[in-house]
């Protein structure tokens, strides 16, 4: 066994003395290529970052101009119905309810009367007095019983 090992070692040494053919590999060119490629990689990262920033800037620039003066949702006609209060009841199914009822608009929000209407009113008051004016129909408010709800 030892003899065999010695012979093998001798063969190993003899083989080691054989030198493989020299390779035409240029380490300077390899280092240059490595530097170039890693620079290209970094450059690509920067290009992507700049492109992303440009897109974000473009989006931010376009956003106000798109919505300037143009409503995002159609306007609701809220001149007639107004939320006047929120009711809370004892029922577990209905903890709060919003009631919408017709209300009298304040003077500032009412549409102005036409000249013809004003003239007709004036004429009626002059001829028949204030009593000739029609009776205003104010809706009567019924008391709301929370227990019935």
């Amino acid at each position, binding site marked *: 066994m030892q003899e065999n090992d010695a012979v093998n070692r001798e063969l190993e040494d003899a083989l080691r*003395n054989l*030198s493989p053919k020299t*390779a035409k*590999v240029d380490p300077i060119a390899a*280092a240059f290529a*490595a530097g170039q490629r890693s620079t290209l990689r970094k450059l690509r990262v920067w290009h992507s970052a700049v492109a992303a920033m440009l897109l974000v800037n473009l989006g931010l620039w376009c956003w106000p101009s798109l919505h300037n003066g143009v409503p995002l949702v159609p306007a609701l006609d809220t001149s007639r119905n107004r939320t006047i209060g929120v009711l809370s009841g004892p029922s577990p199914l209905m903890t709060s309810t919003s009631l919408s009822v017709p209300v009298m608009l304040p003077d500032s929000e009412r549409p102005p009367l036409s000249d013809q209407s004003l003239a007709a009113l004036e004429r009626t008051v002059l001829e028949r007095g204030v009593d000739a004016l029609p009776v205003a129909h104010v809706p009567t408010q019924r008391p709301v019983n929370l227990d019935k709800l």
Partner: protein
Amino acid sequence: MGEHDRLAQLVMQRLAALTLFARQWLDAASAEDVVQETLTTLLMQRKSPDDPVAWMFRAVRNAAIDHCRTSANRRRREQSVAEARGEWFEPRIDVAIDARSAEQALKQLDPTDRQIIVLRIWGDLGLAAIARIMEMGTTTVHERYSAALEKLRTALEKPCRKTTP
């Protein structure tokens, strides 16, 4: 930069062995290309590998196998490379073994055994490193190495054929 210099120097000492290893699959020109490309890849690594020499041999092996797969059938190519008359070693008169005889004896070995011999003798790698590169157990590598050495010895000790005039 100092780290790159150290890596380059380490690899430069083994360039011939690396090319010889790549030649187990490829012809001379392709083997040199593969080694050059692998060296570039090594220098591009942000963190240098723990064992750069073993890393290079493994990378060269993978690159050479990939190169074979892309071009032609691997086994057929290995066979043709083995049969090719490209000289693997520098012919020297002061060496006990003739370069051409050694090449012929190596070519008679199984490709895996030949790779183990190249890694151990000319790559100067330990059995554990060879086992990692070849993706085998250390014991298997040791057994195959001993058996391959035995075959080499038998092949090299064969008496020269007598040529008839």
